[in-house]
């Protein structure tokens, strides 16, 4: 890759990292509050989750449109599932999210299958899920940032934030533009988050490179296409060969 593109690539990678760290930083006070909540000798009651609401609401802002804590099953003493989640509302104060938590109900949908829950649970590390259509919450194309939480050595749930893909795109498009029409930011499956090309629009899968395989080794590729990871986020910058 020629020097100009290297420098511009460096800028993009740094810009993405800054944006990502900015979101995770907003979650830190919630983590502290959750740790306090879970620190007692017995499991908390569902209504104690309301104690998190000040920190959760404070986390909203900038590109963060939803935030909160989602419990692993049986983290609470009186309910199998539970969460405290707030979302921004246009022209008004934040609103609290309620969805059916009763497994016997027809409208119950199991949140424990979503990647934003399972990946932090299984890896012990924070994760960014998406871009995906979040039908449990936003009904929009979303990126969900989640951090695992533990209680007495066991996985107790995740603290998280939602960001609309279009806002992420808006923040990064200007920085991506100098790389021309073959640059895109993709997730670890090769799904495009932001792109300069209508051929590789947000949501499409990059097929010219097996991104999922590359992610294992992150070894340099042959040919003109380059892939660079952005910090430790599951996001990479793809720069296709000029044709």
């Amino acid at each position: 890759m020629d020097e100009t593109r290297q420098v511009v690539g460096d800028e993009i990678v740094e810009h993405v990292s800054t944006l990502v760290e900015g979101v995770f930083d907003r979650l830190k006070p919630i983590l502290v509050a959750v740790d306090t909540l879970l620190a007692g000798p017995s499991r908390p009651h569902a209504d104690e989750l309301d104690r998190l609401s000040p920190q959760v609401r404070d986390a909203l802002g900038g590109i963060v449109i939803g935030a909160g804590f989602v419990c692993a099953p049986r983290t609470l003493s009186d309910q199998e599932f539970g969460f405290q989640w707030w979302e921004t509302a246009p022209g008004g104060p934040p609103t609290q999210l309620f969805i059916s938590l009763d497994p016997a109900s027809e409208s119950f949908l199991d949140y424990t299958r979503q990647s934003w829950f399972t990946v932090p649970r299984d890896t012990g590390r924070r994760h960014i899920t998406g871009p995906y259509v979040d039908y449990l919450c936003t009904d929009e194309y979303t990126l969900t940032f989640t951090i695992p939480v533990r209680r007495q050595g066991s996985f107790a749930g995740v603290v998280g934030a939602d960001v609309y893909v279009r806002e992420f795109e808006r923040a990064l498009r200007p920085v991506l533009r100098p790389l021309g029409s073959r640059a895109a930011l993709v997730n670890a499956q090769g799904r495009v988050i932001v792109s300069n090309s209508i051929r590789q629009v947000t949501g499409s899968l990059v097929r010219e490179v097996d991104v999922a395989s590359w992610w294992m080794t992150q070894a340099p590729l042959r040919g003109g296409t380059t892939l660079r990871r952005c910090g430790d986020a599951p996001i990479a910058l793809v720069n296709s060969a000029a044709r």
Partner: protein
Amino acid sequence: MRKGMSHGARSAMFAPLDQLGRAEAVAARLVDAITLGLLADAERLPSEAELAAQFGVSTVTVREALVVLRQRGLVETRRGRGGGSFVTAPAGGPSPSWQDSLRAVSLGELRDIGDHYAAIAGAAARLAADRSSTEDIQRLELATADLRSATGVEVARAERQFHLEVAAAAQSPRLTQEEVQLQRACGGLLWLPLGSGEPGGHEEHRAITEAISDGAGDAARRLTEDHVLNAVDRLAGLHLDLGP
């Protein structure tokens, strides 16, 4: 508020409250309104701001009152577009049985519901075939497995989750929102909580998932349309059996 409600009834219901126990008082007023049928089942409540203004209390108080109503299963709050707080308890007794719902709908309406649902779900399946990743397929497979052993209300739930996952795998917020609306409006009818559910339903889901996984868009759409139309045919048969 329901059109045609008398001015007297409306103003009495929303007259300002006394100081003490405001959240409980707001909740009690709303419960009365629901029980008396002044607020109909599935009706959307006025916004929190509107209720606060009419009762002469803060929005925080209104919110507390809504928590009480939610806990009592009288109100359901839905997020997103078309969201808000909705009454979930019909006045005067338990919800109509599925037999009543099915009797009330005409064959023509059933066909129309089927056409609409098949169009959305089918289009979503075709897009999912082009756009889904390994993770998406894994979730589809989990949802498919659910239907195999499902009975009663689990059938409705498994169907709902499967079709939502397909719409999400299609990477389409609009189709997902359509799917959510359709499930809300006629999911209860399409995926009736009957015994062991549609025979072959699980096999149909497996075939759809396989087509999506293979990237076979046209097959995925056709199989999904057939799946929905089979459900509608079964309903039509039941409708005719139920008689007038």
